């Protein structure tokens, strides 16, 4: 168990190196900050596996690397399988006394929504089901950004992407987002959560929580994308915050099957506040019916979460 789950800013600033400067992420991309928070949150040394995607591409261009920790990239759809191999080898080598000082190491896989919701879903499901000891971090920018902004099953309804273009007849993506956190939770893993870089203390607590339990854990983090969503580059964290305040991106956790919503906006904003600043929704700003549909979806998911939250563990009843 980590000594305590929260860290204040001063403690955090002392702990973390984060990515080296010079990486090629877009100005304003929030995932370097997310990585910094996660690496800072870990008490033990970590080894990272990264799926193909923006994060991998911008942080390692041979002969350079921005990563201060051991890191492996294998392919697009197999970060979870790769880390499961790393973790299995760790167990075997530990058992055989081949790891000097029997060092405690934590294993973290990072994948984008394409590498996680879509092409990597099987590999993730398999690794969770097998019960490997690892944390999977999904950075969800709601599209395939590395390849030039295509739809994924995380792309919201009506959003414009290059493969769900807003056309004269079809107004962007015609499907809603898939609820991956729910799919993951259905594996009955010890811990799954949703977080946002705007709520950094909640994010860090969740990472520390996840790293402190035995078995597979999962955190889905919203990661706005400057060119993909189309907004001024200083607005990433603000947009992440708007996603939370509009209940578009609920902060919640599922611990041993029990749901807890970690933040309930007292005066939730209508979803339009989240949509408005983003160019990918600009074609629907004069389509109240479509905005209404997104609002309906958000409300429905939220109601469902409230309902799921009612089931409390014995000791809290």
């Amino acid at each position: 168990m980590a000594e305590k789950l929260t860290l204040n800013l001063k403690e955090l600033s002392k702990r973390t190196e984060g990515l080296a400067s010079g990486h090629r992420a877009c100005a304003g991309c929030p995932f370097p900050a997310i990585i910094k928070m996660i690496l800072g949150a870990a008490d033990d040394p970590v080894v990272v596996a990264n799926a193909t995607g923006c994060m991998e591409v911008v942080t390692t261009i041979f002969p350079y690397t921005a990563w201060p920790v051991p890191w492996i990239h294998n392919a697009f759809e197999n970060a979870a399988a790769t880390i499961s191999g790393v973790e299995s080898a760790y167990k075997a080598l530990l058992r055989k006394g081949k790891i000097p000082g029997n060092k405690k190491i934590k294993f973290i896989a990072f994948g984008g929504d394409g590498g996680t919701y879509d092409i990597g879903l099987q590999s993730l499901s398999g690794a969770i089901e097998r019960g490997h000891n690892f944390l999977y971090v999904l950075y969800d920018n709601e599209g395939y950004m590395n390849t030039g902004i295509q739809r994924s099953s995380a792309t919201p309804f009506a959003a414009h992407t290059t493969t769900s273009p807003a056309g004269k007849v079809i107004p962007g993506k015609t499907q809603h987002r898939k609820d991956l956190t729910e799919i993951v939770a259905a594996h009955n893993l010890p811990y799954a959560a949703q977080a946002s870089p705007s709520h950094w203390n909640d994010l860090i607590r969740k990472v520390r929580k996840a790293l402190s339990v035995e078995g597979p854990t999962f955190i889905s983090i919203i990661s706005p994308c400057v060119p993909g969503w189309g907004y001024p580059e200083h607005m990433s964290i603000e947009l992440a915050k708007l996603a939370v305040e509009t209940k578009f991106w609920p902060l919640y956790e599922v611990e041993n099957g029990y749901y807890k919503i970690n933040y309930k906006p007292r005066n939730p904003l209508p979803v339009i506040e989240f949509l408005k600043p983003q160019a990918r929704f600009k074609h629907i700003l004069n389509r109240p019916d479509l905005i209404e549909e997104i609002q309906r979806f958000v409300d429905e998911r939220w109601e469902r979460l409230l309902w799921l939250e009612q089931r409390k563990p014995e000791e809290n009843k």
Partner: protein
Amino acid sequence: MAVKNRKRMALTGNEAYAYAMKQINPDVVAAYPITPATEIVQIFAKYVADGLVNTEFVPVESEHSAMSACVGASATGARVMTGTASQGLALMHEILYIASSLRLPIVMAVVNRALSGPINIHCDHSDTMGSRDAGWIQVYTENANEAYHSVIMGIRIAETVNLPLMVTLDGFIISHEMEVVEVLEDQEVQEFIGERKPLYNILDVDNPITVGPLDLQDYYFEHKRQQVEAMKYAKEVIKSVVEEYNKKFGTDFPAFIEPYRMEDAEYAVLAMSSAAGTMKEAVDLMREKGEKVGLVRLRVFRPFPFEELREVFKNIKAIGVMDRADSLNTMGGPVFNETRSALYDLETRPKMMGFVFGLGGRDFPIEDAIHIIERVKALKEGKKVDMVEYIGVRE
């Protein structure tokens, strides 16, 4: 290929492979079942369950994940093995290239089975031939005994050159047929393979490394070029490891090619895997009739032993090359194509023709083997033959 005064066990090819894995006692095995390789996974899982090995067994949800997990595990410096066939190998295809470019010495059994479609479960070499440019060392074995010993040698070879290696055995023909296998003692196996000594590993948290970065126009080519050098080096290592093994254990395995009755041969056949056994018999029969025919069994396809082939064929007038796979390029199979290319520079270039046989497990009886010899004889005599003949197929 008898090992002198050794413990003899009656084993199928799959059992022999699994038994070698038990004696090797790898750190990690990640595998997924597929006919006809399933038994390897099953037997090994039982070894784990019975505590006979100290391995972390990862029963993955697909072959893609099997090879992906092998890559992750091998990057830690662990000794890693797996096994598959056909569709499983095809599903791994993407990751095979990553394993070899990361220079990870994973050792894999491939039980040769025809690739879909149409779907079929029986032997041919379309699976491993489809992976021939993936940067893996490929060893094709004739029988269960050779498969067993090739795995043990394979560990040493792979870990010396830092390249992955596959040992193939013919589906059902070798994987499921019981044979006498002359096995080493556990201790001998362990001594021969030693410890893996990786140059780098991703569990060394005090010396963090980045594995598998984006590698663009300015470096990718150099890294691929280095893989070519690694394959050249593999040739030296295969030779020395096989020699050392033979010396230590009294075996007489050939490193790359096995010439059979080639001394005064005027024409010859080149064959791989179990079909070479049938072909040896056919050569014997033809020799009894006074035919000066010989056989060369090709044991290693990657790296391709072009120098050895040039040497053994330099005075041969006509050669028939057998392929248990077709390149669908309208000029035969890969063994034929590459052998022809290898012999092109010989001073007196032999006449050559290809034979595609045994696809989808089609039986390869001795009559067909004799027919092949007769066709090569016709080629030698200057009679008109097709560049490629299909053997045992209804046309």
